[in-house]
């Protein structure tokens, strides 16, 4: 894409981003353009480019990165010039696709006077563009599980009058495509979720820093937050400000957000005692599964601080039986034998639950005086 054209597109994107949420029909503009929610709404100050290989088009293509003044990737784009071929016929697809820095689909744009068409070259209606944009924005769309071969099989099926007898029926595919444009929808879906997406994520990862992560974790849509949390798995100590946000999000009411935050932590992270303490401060608010996971992390880390030991001691009476059992394992493994802990364990040894009582008794035999 020529730089000027890219900048024109950029201006468009910034214009239509103002509403921020959902799909925007922009048929009043000269070009046909649709987009979804942006990860971050920063003004673009610079455009970088790099050549990547795209497996769908099977050739080298140029990927553009749009960067803010702070050096934050704002979005990415690339031009697509490819044939959509079926039944020995090909139709040229000339379109610009946009991605968010997290690899999430951002939108598409057609160059001047270009339009997408269905069978017999009937142009898409506004509603069909909206539907296409919606389909492309769903990373879990079952269309992703289809193959071109399966879709192609549908058209030939009628020749043998066996369509619907076996294999996924045409009806199955129709739910996930713009009607009359199955191949175009499928090709675009493959392009959106293919190699370019991976390249986008990788490029963003290369320039990732704490400030950028902080913005994504606090200001971006839900899916982008999850992406950022996945990204910092095992690297949380490298991002001090983001680390605090991740700790906060462990208490989020959204289960997956909270669970992913906890699972981004690896045992090595707990070697930082301050982090270990902060994690245990969250512990009492965790559900059973997250408490279980935290105990596993403590088992696998090399040391636990005395503060953490005291806090766990205080929590013990209210904890679920398997968690108490896990905490005893942690204490035993780390050789915890301070008087407070031994007193707590002595009380557990008198517990009505014989399983816990036996475990605590064994502990006292090993480490008690």
């Amino acid at each position, binding site marked *: 894409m020529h730089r000027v054209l890219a900048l024109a597109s950029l201006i468009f994107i910034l214009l239509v981003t103002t509403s921020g949420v959902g799909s925007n029909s922009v048929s009043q503009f000269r070009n046909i353009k649709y987009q979804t929610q942006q990860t971050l709404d920063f003004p673009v100050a610079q455009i970088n480019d790099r050549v990547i290989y795209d497996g769908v088009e099977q050739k080298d293509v140029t990927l553009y990165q749009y960067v803010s003044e702070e050096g934050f990737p704002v979005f990415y784009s690339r031009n697509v010039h490819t044939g959509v071929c079926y039944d020995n016929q090909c139709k040229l697809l000339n379109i610009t696709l946009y991605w968010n820095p997290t690899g999430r689909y951002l939108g598409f744009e057609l160059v001047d006077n270009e339009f997408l068409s269905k069978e017999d070259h009937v142009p898409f209606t506004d509603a069909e563009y909206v539907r296409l944009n919606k389909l492309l924005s769903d990373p*879990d769309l*079952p269309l992703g599980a289809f*193959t*071109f*071969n*399966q879709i*192609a*099989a549908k058209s*030939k*099926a009628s*020749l*043998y009058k*066996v369509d619907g*007898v*076996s*294999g*996924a029926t045409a009806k199955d595919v129709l739910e996930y495509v713009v009607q009359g444009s199955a191949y175009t929808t499928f090709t675009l879906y493959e392009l959106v979720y293919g190699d370019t997406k991976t390249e986008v994520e990788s490029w963003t990862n290369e320039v990732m820093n704490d400030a950028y992560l902080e913005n994504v974790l606090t200001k971006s849509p*839900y899916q982008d937050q*999850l992406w950022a949390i*996945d990204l910092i798995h095992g690297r949380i100590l490298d991002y001090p400000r983001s680390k605090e946000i991740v700790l906060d999000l462990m208490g989020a009411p*959204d*289960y*997956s*957000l909270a*669970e*992913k935050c906890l*699972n981004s932590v690896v045992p090595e992270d707990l070697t930082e005692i301050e982090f270990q303490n902060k994690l245990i401060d969250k512990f*009492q608010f965790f*559900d*059973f*599964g997250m408490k*279980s*996971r935290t105990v*596993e992390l403590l088992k696998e880390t090399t040391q636990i601080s005395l503060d953490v030991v005291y806090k766990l001691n205080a*929590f013990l009476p*209210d*904890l*679920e*039986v*398997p*968690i108490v*059992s896990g905490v005893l394992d942690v204490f035993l493994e780390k050789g915890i034998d301070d008087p407070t802990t031994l007193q707590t364990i002595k009380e557990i040894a008198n517990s009505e*639950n*014989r*399983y*816990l*009582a*036996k475990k605590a008794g064994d502990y006292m035999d090993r480490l008690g005086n």
Partner: protein
Amino acid sequence: MNRRDVLSTIGALSVGLTSSAIVKGDVLKKPYKTIDRKLETDILVIGGGTAGSIAAIQAGRTGHQVTLIECQSQLGGTVTTAGVAFPGLFFAWGKQVISGVGWELVQSAVQMNGDSLPNFSLPHGREHWKHQIRLNASLYALLLEEKCLEAGVNVRYYETPTSLVFKDEHWYVETVGKGVRAEIKCKQIIDCSGNAIAASIAGYKLFKEKVTQPGTLMFRIGGYDFESLDLERLKIAYEMAIDRGELIRGEFRGDIIALLKEKGDNVQHIEGADSTTSETHTEANIKGRESLLKHLRFLKKQPGLGNVRIEEMRTEAGIRETYRIDGLYRISYEDYITGKVYPDSIAYSYYPVDLHTVEGVVPEQLAEGVVPTIPFRSMIPKNSRNFIVAGRSICSDQLANSGLRVQASCMAMGQAAGAAAALAIEKKVTPSDLPIGELKKLIEMHGGIVPLGKKTSKG
């Protein structure tokens, strides 16, 4: 060894062979004799599958003596031995509805295998399997065994019950295993056989549909490039093979493309598959394997499939449905789809109504916000004492059962059964007389979730 040594050794061996079958290193054993064992335990869990292994761990964690007998060589049942290693559903409408022992193990298996959980906050829509959790079945079996042993459970593989007699407030259970006959005296029985075999032997009434859901042999095929196949030609060849009587449409749901696309994953249907006895299970396994072999031979003759091969196959077929007990309460389809909550609801069970037939399966998703529950009474056979059933054999009609039979629900039922058996011993009552409030509290104290229960165990 030189030539002379070799010859002298052969000579010695020849002498040995003519005089006795013993050579150096062998030990003469007396003729084989079955060992008789007399064991005593608090709780006997029969069947170490999806529900039974969880029930045993839960019961063990209450501090009672627990013995678990399992007719196969490992724990986990359908998840591990049958290879249906994608349990679900633990979440409904963005909230966790099944936790506790099962969740603890699933979470550990996911973490240890370097996998990640699906996003349960995003609605699954019609694709409920998106919220199922792919597990490494072998790892899950190892973790189950470790947790059982850690909870003090006496695990006895290769054993199955042959007789159950109740007298003087105890059960006397005879089992047979490899070279072992055991008589196990216990206070409470939890039948997690999946077929209610123990309930049947004990003389309690069972139900079975005239037509049960088919079973499935899990396997994986490979050695072909799906994208390069001429699917239309293949469909036609498949239809022709069915017309000629070479293949049976129902064995792969009439969908040869799905067999190839999914590489065999959970696509086979074995009509009438029943795991209740060694004879019926043998028949189901043979039918499943014959069907696979037949289809493999057919596929190998098709263009692009000359190198198709089996990459993995589980040792036995997974069974969806056999017998259900006649319990104190029968869960109906209506109860299930309306999410009825009972005073004695001890677990949630969230899954669509999922009746597999010869034609295939079209799941009926539950209406938004609906989460069915399991009443404890449905786990107790009528006229029984000190006897609980957990898993797919609980008292329910076929449609309700098609939803509640799934693995996460079985885990929740297993946990409830383990807790109930322990509490019944402590209270010296039969399970039907248990104070339900105390049972719910005990389940929660062990991390389980009970319907409408307040989180009594949280700090």
